[in-house]
């Protein structure tokens, strides 16, 4: 059993100055909020970029007012140039994947609630934790500077396939300085996430309070733990890749650029590099990254649902093992991104089967969720609505995996909007719903104020319907062979599809605008929302035993002692409550379940 006296390696006192309280804080809670704010900034930028892209795709030669001021070369007279479209696309993807989907559900909520839920005063290495945020923040700044260099951001997409990404400015606008900035930003980002993962893992391993055995950890902790294990290995592989890419740019090495390439009738001064090397390194990171984005969401949704269903999941073990299986498989399947990349066709098959296998753990999780709904006393609130929406989105995005996992079908659907629809549904929207669910669920704890439920519900309904209107049609487009990453649709077989794009654009503008409700709710409730009780949702895990918001040292200096797992819902107790907090020695009289 873990030792209760395990204190952080660096015990830090209460913050004294404004700087140490809000800026360079060692407090995991403040750092969590900092991550959340960063993600909020990033997601706004990313969303505006997607708006611009959508408008361009719907009405290619339409002048977008004000865009010329933003980028005279990118949008002469407000009409977006093809390269500017690709540059916006690259930045949209990079910002969303790294600075929203990785930071919000993992770094933000994880930082805030992981130490609390294991009953610790803080993470073992608060200084690393602080560095982790500020490195990530620096990475974000570096990335954004790409907008302000002469040729603008890179246009090679978030996958930045070599040699397009490695040759330099001759390959296209933004492929010089912009691409180097991009690579540098990612390299720095990796450092931040490695430090974070290190902290997360040792928090779970070593900082658990008395009685908090591994089997009693709330599912969210497991999700964050699994995610940090993936992050530790994935980002450790991306960083070398970015280093080599930068060297190809600035040092004239040839890691990724083969011989005999010709641009502008000039031989490219590189030789002997391997094009596929980048793809292998990138996707070895890239596929786990997808799960880094979604697994925390699965944890949050499970946590929110158990609380609101007033009953434990049918089998928490099944969910945990499934998440582990996902994490494990994610390293064996990255090749399915390269079916048509000229890999040995046999290896395509080798990668295809584990990819198909991924559907098994995913299905297990979904079935456990749905099965647990049966006979529950489901409470409908914004948090649970988004959690249920997550399940629906996860299913919708998941089934398209059936197609893309098969090389033979990938021949038709690779690099089409079918893929775009697939990953937006499953790692974009689903993860977002996880973030929303977590926000509505934990906001009272984080700020001490309740969020406005009415606005929250409106926000859910419009977002839920809106996102389906955006991303379902993507699948139809892909099915008809609509190629992705096109700045305009000039091909005869694509022209008939433009109306669909216009529909999507309208839906996107609408759904994006709806998010202003969320922003308003967030800001308004932060200051004007009614005061939140310690345990508004009648939850059992340790974050609910402390006041809202928690004091700087979480449990007021004395470590809680844990007697139960976090799933003591739907039980009969002397006090008449249908749940038992993890830290209460009280035993259930008899589970009120039939069996």
């Amino acid at each position: 059993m873990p030792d209760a006296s395990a204190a952080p390696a660096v015990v830090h006192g209460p913050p004294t100055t404004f700087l140490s309280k809000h800026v360079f804080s060692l407090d995991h809670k403040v750092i969590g909020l900092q991550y959340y704010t960063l993600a909020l900034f990033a997601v706004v930028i990313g969303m505006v970029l997607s708006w611009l892209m959508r408008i361009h795709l719907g009405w290619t030669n339409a002048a977008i007012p004000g865009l010329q001021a933003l980028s005279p070369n990118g949008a002469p007279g407000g009409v977006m140039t093809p390269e500017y479209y690709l540059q916006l696309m690259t930045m949209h993807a990079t910002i969303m994947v790294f600075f929203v989907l990785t930071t919000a559900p993992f770094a933000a909520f994880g930082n805030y609630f992981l130490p609390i839920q294991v009953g610790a005063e803080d993470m073992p290495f608060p200084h690393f934790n602080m560095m982790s945020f500020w490195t990530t923040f620096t990475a974000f700044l570096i990335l954004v500077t790409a907008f302000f260099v002469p040729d603008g951001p890179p246009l090679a997409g978030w996958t930045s396939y070599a040699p397009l990404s490695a040759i330099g400015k001759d390959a296209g606008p933004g492929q010089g300085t912009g691409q180097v900035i991009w690579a540098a930003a990612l390299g720095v980002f990796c450092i931040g996430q490695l430090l974070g993962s290190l902290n997360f893992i040792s928090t779970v391993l070593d900082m658990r309070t008395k009685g908090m055995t591994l089997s009693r950890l709330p599912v969210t902790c497991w999700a964050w733990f699994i995610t940090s294990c993936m992050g530790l290995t994935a980002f450790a592989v991306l960083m070398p890749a970015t280093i080599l890419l930068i060297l190809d740019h600035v040092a004239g090495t040839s890691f990724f650029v083969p011989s005999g390439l010709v641009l502008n009738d000039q031989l490219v001064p590189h030789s002997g590099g391997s094009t596929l090397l980048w793809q292998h390194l990138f996707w070895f990171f890239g596929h786990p990254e997808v799960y880094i984005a979604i697994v925390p969401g699965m944890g949050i949704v499970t946590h929110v649902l158990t609380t609101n269903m007033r009953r434990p999941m049918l089998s928490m073990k099944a969910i945990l093992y499934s998440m582990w299986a996902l994490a494990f498989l994610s390293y064996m399947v990255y090749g399915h991104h390269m079916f048509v990349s000229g890999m040995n066709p046999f290896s395509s098959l080798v990668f295809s089967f584990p990819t198909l296998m991924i559907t098994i753990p995913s299905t297990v999780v979904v079935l456990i969720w749905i099965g647990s709904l049966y006979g529950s006393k489901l409470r409908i609130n914004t948090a649970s609505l988004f959690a249920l929406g997550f399940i629906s989105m996860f299913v919708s995005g998941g089934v398209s995996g059936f197609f893309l996992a098969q090389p033979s079908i990938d021949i038709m659907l690779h690099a089409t909007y079918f893929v775009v629809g697939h990953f937006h549904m499953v790692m974009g929207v689903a993860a977002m719903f996880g973030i929303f669910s977590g926000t509505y669920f934990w906001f009272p704890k984080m700020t001490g104020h309740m969020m406005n439920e009415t606005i929250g519900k409106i926000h859910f309904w419009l977002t839920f319907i809106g996102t389906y209107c955006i991303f379902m049609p993507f699948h139809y487009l892909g099915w008809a062979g609509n190629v992705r990453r096109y700045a305009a649709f000039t091909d005869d077989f694509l022209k008939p599809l433009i109306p669909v794009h216009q529909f999507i654009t309208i839906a996107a503008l609408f759904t994006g605008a709806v998010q202003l409700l969320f922003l308003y709710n967030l800001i308004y409730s932060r200051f004007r929302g009614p005061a939140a009780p310690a345990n508004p949702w009648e939850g059992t895990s340790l974050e609910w035993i402390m006041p809202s918001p928690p004091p700087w040292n979480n449990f007021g200096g004395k470590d809680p002692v844990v007697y139960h797992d976090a799933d003591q819902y739907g039980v009969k107790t002397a006090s008449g409550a249908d749940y038992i907090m993890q830290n209460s020695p009280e035993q259930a009289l008899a589970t009120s379940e039939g069996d």
Partner: protein
Amino acid sequence: MATTVPPPKIEILPAPDRPGNGHVGGGQNLIPDGANLRVAQQYSPPASSSAIWVGIAAICMSFAAFTSALIVRQGASNDWRHITLPSVLFLSTLLLLASSVTLEVARRRVASYMLGTDSHIASPRLWLSLTLGLGLLFVAGQYMAWLQLRSQGLYLATNPNSSFFYVFTAVHALHVLGGLAGLLRAIRKLGNATLRRSTLDATAIYWHFMGVLWIYLFLLLWLKI
């Protein structure tokens, strides 16, 4: 110095039954469990001693990626020219290995100091500083190796083998510098009697790992696979 260290009140704590807590590396053969040690009653959380392995795992992943890059790149085309490694590398390798030995000695001295059998803080500090010095010499050696290559006209971009050589040695040297920072920290903490066994152990594990990693890289670059 030693006199400034207040002899703390001794109370025996049971060593908790989980990994870490000064039971890593050379720990066991120094201190029997539950022994009456100055350190035992304020062992650090084991966080550092398990985190160090987590960190090492991450570093291993990175160099695994580098290695696969090397293998793929080598097979990618026939422009691979094997470079003969600068002779100074053999020396710096020895230096790094020696530093591991001196660090182990230092750890024993620290232990015996904490045991109270040796009341002089000077000797452990000396051995730690020795390790630090050897580490610095190693980095200097790497730098000299680069100079030797330059003098042969082998630069970063000259051929893939030299590219990888510079990348590997540079990245490894950075990690070594990190280890040196750790050693400095340990020396400082030893000075003001706040050094925890687990801190020193973690630093030592990391430092030995640097040695192992270097041997691996050295062979990778030396054996013309």
